[in-house]
């Protein structure tokens, strides 16, 4: 497969065919991290059922690595319990992609932050009375 820059095949494949793209309309939790000024912004929306991530979608403004890491993190946590999802680290995301160039490691950090933010948002909503 053709690759770009110092990205692995897997990064390029996720860039070309990202998984779980979109935004869940009646999401239970939303995580938004990054800043368009810095060139990376990620939004993850989740649907939680029985303490598990039943559905997950993402939207990303950013480079190929930003797109691939968000895509990969949604794959890694889909179907997992919230506790399990919180165990997923940026290293897991990078490893699942076959590694990232050093200057793109921050993308995997953002991806980890995005899923954490979405879970945190879900928990806050639960604590705040469960309304959406």
């Amino acid at each position, binding site marked *: 497969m*053709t690759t*770009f*820059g110092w*990205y692995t095949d897997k990064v*390029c494949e996720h*860039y*070309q065919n*990202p998984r779980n*793209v979109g*935004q869940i309309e009646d999401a239970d939790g939303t995580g*938004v991290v990054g*800043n*368009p*000024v*810095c*060139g*990376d*912004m990620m*939004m993850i929306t989740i649907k939680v059922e029985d303490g598990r991530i039943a559905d997950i979608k993402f*939207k*990303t*403004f*950013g*480079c*190929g690595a*930003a*797109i691939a890491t968000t895509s990969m993190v949604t794959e890694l946590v889909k179907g997992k319990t919230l506790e399990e999802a919180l165990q997923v680290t940026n290293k897991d995301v990078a490893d699942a992609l076959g590694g990232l160039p050093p*200057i793109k*490691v*921050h993308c995997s950090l953002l991806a980890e932050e995005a899923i954490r933010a979405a879970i945190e948002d879900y928990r806050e909503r639960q604590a705040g009375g469960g309304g959406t």
Partner: protein
Amino acid sequence: MKKRIYMDHNATTPLREEVLEAMLPYLRDEFGNASSLHAFGIRARRAVETAREQVAAALGAQPREIIFTGCGTEADNQAIKGVAFANRSKGDHIITSRVEHKAVLETCEYLEKQGFRVTYLPVDEYGLVSPDDVAQAITDRTILVSVMFANNEVGTIQPIAEIAQVCRERGVYFHTDAVQAVGKLPIDVRQLGIDLLSLSAHKFYGPKGVGALYVRKGVRIDPLLHGGHQEWGLRAATENVAGIVGLGKALELRLTEMEAEAQRLTALRERLYNGIVARIDHVYLNGHPTRRLPGTLSVSFDYIEGEGIIMGLDLEGIAVSSGSACTSATLEPSHVLLAMGVHPATAQGSIRFSLGRGNTEEDVDTVLEVLPPIVKRLRELSMFSEETPFPEEAGPRRRRTKECVR
């Protein structure tokens, strides 16, 4: 494998076959040191001096005014540091612009640490420096003004003659980084009133690793490199004979086709731009609409990021760059686009096409087929759109790029 399309000629150009042929003898049998007095040395010396004449003729200069360097960056360093250190008793103030190449900007920043004062002039929305701003910035402590001939990222051509005239009237040396302009635009250093001019061979189909600096006779300048008499003591180093021969040959050949190529590339560039605008919305042209390098087209796409676009194009065999290849490893948007007042988030969505000798109308049409679906796909991936634009607080008034840390 389908044909790869190279549209990144401002980064570098392929070596011309005729230039390679001219260089090869000096990489094989003609290995002499140009400083030696035996036959080997004399042949190498003749080759270097022929190249010097070719460069001088191309610029309207005297051969004695051409110094060969290791690259364009070195020529910029030599010009700015050389003039600064040689004229310290006269003054300690340097004027440049905010859109210069890093070779100039970071040299100036270094000189600030050495006690010099530097004024970084603003530019207008097209990237133009105002000669009036130059005049107003000059003080009796000013020793050098350095403004690039044409910008590498957006292609805007500066009012060089007007700026040079201001400098001449005030008795201040004028240097121009013409790395992107030489071989693309007609340049006569005498007519324009330029005191120092930098150029680089690999931008006009010559080899990498060789550049030149024009230093007008009478300009006081210190060397960067010490340790030999070469280049009249201004650049102590054994001459890169093959590289110098290649530079001279490449420039000579380029001049014969420059005018026709300028017309052809301007037409191709316009075909590309008009095609993009017709197919994609929320696209902005960066740089001056007409006062621009023939083959350079910088455009910004709202709601998406530039590397994503470049990646999509490269996977389809089309090579372009985002802003400047030198800065593509950083998170900050292009300093050139920011200086022009482009919204920093929009600046992140910028790509630069720089067309050259090998490009054809078919290439442009291929790009026009390939690019729109990539932009469409990336926009579908993005949380930003016409309905949900970039947040206002990220706008041009807030220069918060320093906060972009990894």
